[in-house]
Structures are given as C-alpha cells and as structure tokens.
C-alpha cells in the first residue's frame, strides 16, 4: 500500500505565517495538489497579492511573482500574453481583488484572459488588521466599522462570482467554501477544473473560496467555521455560476 497522505511537491516545507484556524493553508494545499496532479509545476507562475497571502511565494515551489495591491490580474495578463505556454494563477484576497483591484479583475475576466484566479473571500481585511472589506457582511464589526457595517453608508457586500458571471465573455466562475471536509473536496475539484480549463486554453477561470479569519472576526477557529456557515453562506451561495460550453 502506498503513502496515502503527503505534502504536495508544489508546496514547500516552510511553516506558514497564517493564524491558527485560518483556511489559507487549505487553499494553498488544494492549489498545489491541482498543480501536481496536472503535472504543470515546471511551467507554472503564481502571482501573490498584497494581503495575508503576500508571502504565498514562500509556500509554493513554482516560479512566483509578487504584485502590487489588486494588480495581480494585470500582471497575469502580461505573462499570458507574452508566454501563452505558461500556466498562470493569481491568488488574491477580498480587499485586494474586490476593492482596489476591481478594475483589473473585471477587465481581465472580460478579455477572457486564460489564467486562473483563486479568490479568498473571508469578509474582512486580514493583514492590515481587520478593516472593512467590500465583502464584509451588514452589521459585521470591523476596525473601520466599529459599530458594524452600515449598508446605508457603504452599500451591500459585493458578490464577485455573481458579478463576473454577468460578463458575456465565456469563463469558468464558481464559488466554493473551505468550512468542512465535504466542501473542501468540492473546492479541490473546482480548483483542478479551473486549471484544466487553462491548460486547454479554454477560458478565464475564477474560484471564489469562502474562508475564515478567526483572528479578525474575534472568534475561535471552531466558532469561526460556524459563523461562516450561518452568516456568509446564505448570502454567498455556493456552486458553479458559469461553465464554458
């Protein structure tokens, strides 16, 4: 009987700097597994965002670039246009992608750039210290919304998968979650599928992952999972939003 569990080759042995209970580690692993299973590590370039995953390049073993806040889709565009043979993924959080980088992601998706975006939605800014994100829930407390998000002032949370689905350009747009093993297995399949579409040169692919941030939510890891189930999932519905023909 072979080994049933091991570190994917595309992940390094480094300990991550992520907080206890954070789901970034799971997302990293799923991406690395997809890269390994597709045998594309030698031609993959990842792009790290600004945010908690800014140091993602320390945990992946493929070529990596580090973007400015929100600009990863533009960098990925630059790479894919000049080196279409490379496999490119951006790994971005909600402040990075849905706030400062909204222009870049929309236009890259609309051009049908053939790269993959892994979008970590945990409804808060992590690294900068729990500030309100475009994805923060109504009434959810943040350091820049101490009384809770006031939607009269800040609007409703942005649902990126729903938004990108509306673009007429074909693409693979899906929202998954990392809150329990069943969801994680589905997320793994979705991530692999996203990379497969890219390998086939088919379309832009986008995997939104509902994640937790116990530290900035002020919850224990277990309570954080429950809060996400109860609060985030009813608003951020899981499933495939768009699948290419």
């Amino acid at each position, binding site marked *: 009987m072979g080994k049933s569990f091991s570190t994917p080759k595309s992940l390094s042995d480094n300990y991550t700097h992520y907080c206890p209970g954070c789901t970034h580690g799971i997302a990293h692993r799923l991406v690395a597994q997809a890269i390994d299973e597709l045998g594309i*590590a*030698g*031609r*993959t*370039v990842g*792009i*790290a965002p600004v945010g908690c995953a*800014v*140091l993602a*390049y320390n945990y992946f*073993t*493929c*070529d*990596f*670039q*580090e*973007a*400015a806040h929100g*600009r990863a889709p*533009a*960098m*990925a*565009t*630059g*790479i894919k*246009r*000049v*080196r279409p*043979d*490379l496999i490119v993924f951006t790994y971005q959080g909600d402040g990075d992608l849905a706030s400062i980088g909204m*222009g*870049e992601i929309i*236009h890259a998706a609309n051009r049908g750039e053939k790269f993959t975006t892994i979008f970590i939605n945990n409804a808060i800014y992590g690294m900068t210290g729990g500030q309100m994100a475009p994805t923060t829930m109504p009434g959810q407390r943040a350091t820049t919304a101490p009384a809770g998000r006031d939607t009269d002032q800040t609007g409703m949370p942005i649902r990126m998968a729903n938004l990108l689905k509306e673009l007429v350009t074909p693409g693979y747009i899906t929202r998954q979650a990392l809150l329990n093993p069943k969801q994680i297995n589905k997320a793994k399949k979705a991530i692999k599928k996203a990379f497969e579409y890219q390998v086939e040169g088919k379309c832009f692919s986008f995997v939104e992952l509902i994640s937790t941030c116990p530290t900035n939510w002020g919850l224990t890891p277990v309570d954080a999972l429950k809060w996400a189930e109860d609060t985030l999932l009813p608003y951020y519905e899981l499933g495939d939003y768009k699948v290419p023909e």
Partner: protein
Amino acid sequence: MAKVLMKGNEAIGEAAIRAGCKNYFAYPITPQSEVAEYLAKRMPEVDGVFLQGESEVAVGYMIFGASACGERVMTTSSSPGVSLMGEAISYISAAQCPAVFVNIMRGGPGLGGILPSQGDYFQATKGGGHGDYHLLVLAPDGVQEAVEMTMKAFGLAEKYRGPVMILGDGLIGQMMEPVEFPDDLMTEPSNKDDWATSGMDTRKSDKRNLVRSLFLDPKELNDNNLALKAKYEQMKKEEVLYEGYNTDTDYKVLIVSYGTMSRVCKTSIDMMKQDGIEVGLLRPKSLFPFPEDAVFKASTKESCQSVISIEMSMGQMVEDVERCVKGQRKVDFYGECGGDIPTPEKIIEIIKGLL
C-alpha cells in the same frame, strides 16, 4: 536602408520592433496615441503582442508581468498616464526587471494640455513613484534620435535590469522627419535564466525564480536598495550622454537645454553668431545620469560669465544645473509651458539681457 519620412510616434513603435521587442501594452492618450495605432497594425505582422489595457495602472503591471518573464516589452504614454504608471515603475525598479517606458510629454499639472511640454523632468529623473529608485532617462531632440534611443533602451534595460525611460515631448511625437533604423543598434537579448519567472521547464532547472519587491527584513531591504544604488552609480560612470554646440568658441553665456527646446536654442545661437555674439549650448541627452562634469566644465570655461537653463517648464532641470555649476557662475532660468514653445527671437532677447 533608405530614409523614410515618419512621425515620431510611429518611428518609436517601429524602433521597438527593430530592437527585437515584440510585446507592447498601452492605453490611448494624446499626444502619443499614434504609437498604439501603429503597433496595433505592426505587431500582428511580426507575430508580436499588442494589447490595449483598461488603464495606465493596469498597463504598468502588464509590463511588469511580461518583463518578469524575461521578455522584451514596451509601453508608451503621456504625462497623466505616466503618473498612473508611477506605481508599477516603482515596483519594477525594486524587483529589478528590464522594461522600456516612453513618455511623450504634454502640459501639466492635472489634465493640463495636449501641447508639448517638459514638465515631467522631476517625475522622470527624481522618482515619480515612491521609494528610492531612479530611471535611466534618455531625452531625444528629434525623430531620428528618438529611434536610436528607443532601440538602445532595450539593451540598457537588460544591462541594468531596470526600467529605462525615453522622455520626449508632443512635438517629437507628432512631427515627421526622415529616419533610418540602424541595424547595429539591435542588441541580442541577454540570458535571464538566473532571475526571470520563465517557467522552470523553460530553463531546464529545478530552481524556481521569484520576482518580488517586498523585503520585510530591514537588512534585506537595505541590501536591495544598495544594489539599486550601485547600478545608478554605474550608470553615472557609463551612460552619461550629452552634446556641446558652439562650445569651442569663447562664449559668454552657456545655455543648458534638452529635447525640442535645445533645437530652438541652436537656432538662436546661429542667429546670434551672425551678430558676433557667441553663446554655447550644453545639451544633456541622458537626463539621468545627468552630465554633471560636462555642465561644470562648460560653465566654468574662462570666457563664460553666466549659465541659463532653458526649458519648456517652470524650472525643473535648472535645479540640476545649479547643483553642477557649484556656485561658480550665476545660473538663470527661462521657461515657458502651456504649449507655446519659446521662439528663437525670444531666447535671443533673454540671452541679450544676460550680457
């Protein structure tokens, strides 16, 4: 090859292709949009990449991503657009990637105007984006020189692994002059295997490459900035370019002027010569590195009584001129901006006022 008559903007686009650059990303802005229009046609003919980005902000990072893969890449813009690219230029400098930026300057600040200006001297030579970096900045005075500098820029960007800027102005972009594209200015792309994220398979290597500008460890950041500084010091030794005009005479006044403005000054100098008045011109062709020694020597020539910096701005390069003259002579300034380029007659009036 026979000379052809070309607009500066189109010639810059062609020069990039002749220099082996097959990748161009840009956003339209007057007065440089003809580069994009030209390359939208030309790049497909050479199996190159042309992409109109959604903004200059995004274009800056398309350039970053492409150059970080080790490919030759260029963008062109004009002043307000270059401001938006300032962020990416800072990142590209820190991450040490070669790339060519062309700024066909228009009047500012703000939306300013669309006529020629030299108002971005500070932005180009002193920063523009945040942090400790410099661009290697070349300033052509016409279409032929714009071609030659653009062609050389790709090799220089690779030599120093950093961004190079061609700083022209709206007149150089819009004007047509006869040009030729000297084949010997085409340089072979350097080997980038030790740093570019070109894919491990491409490099036949197990070692991954990382392109980044984040250095949280203070020593690491300091070391990176020292590495950048060493490059700037090397540029000061090896890349200074300038031209002297009428400087073999016993001139009483030395003009320091660059780009389009320097051509007007040359006409003034020729006209004054006919009246027996000798005036010298020192034209920096590289703005960073600035021809410090040349300006000092030319300004401290015994016959020279005063120095004047003449610019299509409100006085920017004059600060570098003052720095280089080191108090040995009086340094004056004359400039106009807004789009009306000072006439030769106006320059003569100003010079006569100094005598």
